[in-house]
């Protein structure tokens, strides 16, 4: 079982479009398990119409709750809190649940012992069936933290499922950025495919996300999306990859088929046989041997 994670550094480079197409191409050849690790903006499900088979609440951490009746109003909790999460209004101390980091410093420091740590439900995760195979996905409730933990959970569940199903591939749709959810999505993967955009910001962010993959010793390869929007920058990214001995797997063209397919809830390779669909087939052809199969 090989795990491929698709990342972009910057948001909106076309990760999910690429993941959905690769999933469709993989599914014609063998069993795969999909994992949507973009728990902040889980969009893969919108294309694959998943039938949810199992769902579970996700407890991301805990948050402090002050028992007002036992509080002696000493303010120690406010003094020890480094997240400005303890509020005092007319001598009554309360916790701002959104600001609370769940560190429990106040719980241990309270001389009256009136602060409890209560589990905070911060999302849900699901195991679903789609026309392309199993999908593990999740949703973080608005404004919640610990998305890295939720991504780890999604990854873990996808791995377990892949072992059960004897799947050939786990395909992971990563999240933008370089922070905890990305670190959780990339670690332990066999290959990270970077979907880069030929823009000044796309180049900058590609560099940073490649740094994360290198840091966690995950081999990386690059594909450029919408290369024809700016051929000059596209060529710069290709040169950048050559300099660093990074496999450049191709340039995907700008194609209205991407948006049209998205609106129909289909993958590009299902909805079209145009230039983008063909380029995606070409991508899979070079990617597959890199996954050792």
């Amino acid at each position, binding site marked *: 079982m090989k795990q491929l994670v698709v990342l972009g550094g910057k948001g909106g480079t076309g990760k999910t479009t690429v993941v959905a197409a690769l999933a469709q191409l993989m599914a014609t050849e063998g069993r795969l398990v999909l994992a949507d690790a973009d728990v902040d903006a889980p969009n893969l499900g919108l294309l694959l119409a998943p039938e949810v088979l199992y769902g579970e609440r996700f*407890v991301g951490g805990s948050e402090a709750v002050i028992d007002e009746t036992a509080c002696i109003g000493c303010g120690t909790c406010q003094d020890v809190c480094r997240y400005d999460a303890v509020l005092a209004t007319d001598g009554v101390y309360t916790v701002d649940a959104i600001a609370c980091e769940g560190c429990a410093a106040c719980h241990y420091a309270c001389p009256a012992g009136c602060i409890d740590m209560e589990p905070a439900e911060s999302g849900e995760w699901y195991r679903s069936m789609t026309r392309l195979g199993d999908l593990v996905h999740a949703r973080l409730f608005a404004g919640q933290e610990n998305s890295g933990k939720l991504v780890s959970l999604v990854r873990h569940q996808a791995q377990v499922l892949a072992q059960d199903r004897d799947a050939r591939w786990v395909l992971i749709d990563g999240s933008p950025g370089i922070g*905890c959810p990305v*670190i*959780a999505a990339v*670690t*332990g993967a066999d290959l990270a495919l970077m979907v880069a955009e030929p823009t000044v910001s796309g180049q900058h962010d590609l560099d940073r996300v490649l*740094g994360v993959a290198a*840091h966690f*010793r*995950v081999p990386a390869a690059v594909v450029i999306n919408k290369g024809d929007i700016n051929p000059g920058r596209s060529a710069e990214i290709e040169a950048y990859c050559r300099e660093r001995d990074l496999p450049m797997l191709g340039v995907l063209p700008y194609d209205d088929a991407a948006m049209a397919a998205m609106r129909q809830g289909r993958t590009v390779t299902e909805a079209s046989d145009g230039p983008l669909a063909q380029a995606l087939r070409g991508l899979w052809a070079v990617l597959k041997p890199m996954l050792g199969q």
Partner: protein
Amino acid sequence: MKIAVSSTAPGAEAQVSPIFGRCNCFVVVDTETQAVASLANPALGASGGAGIQSAQYIVQQGVQAVISGNVGPNAMQVLNAAGVDVYAATGGTVAEVVAALQAGQLEALTGPSVAKDFGKGGPMGGMGGGRGMGGGMGRGRGL
């Protein structure tokens, strides 16, 4: 010798788990008395640092060796620091892998066998890894 095996379920007939930090269970086998104890993994629901917490727990059980499918770098560092030897086993039951270890058939792991699950480490950052104190980091306790 006391050996802890990361496992998918309790008991000597359970399968060895491919993971360490978030495995379901640890089965501790005492090779002298043949006693078998199954322990729930306290780190199963940890938000982060599951490997560290489970490794600390295993060290507290006074074991001399660990057998697991894989061990992440954080857990490995804790086990190394405590002088616990770590061995890789790709499959089999707890009883089988303990027998394999006694027969000298298991590969000793000296570095992490999987990338760490979460957080920073490795050669680039210069912040990775634990800051040890006291005691030696020595390994190599014989079987």
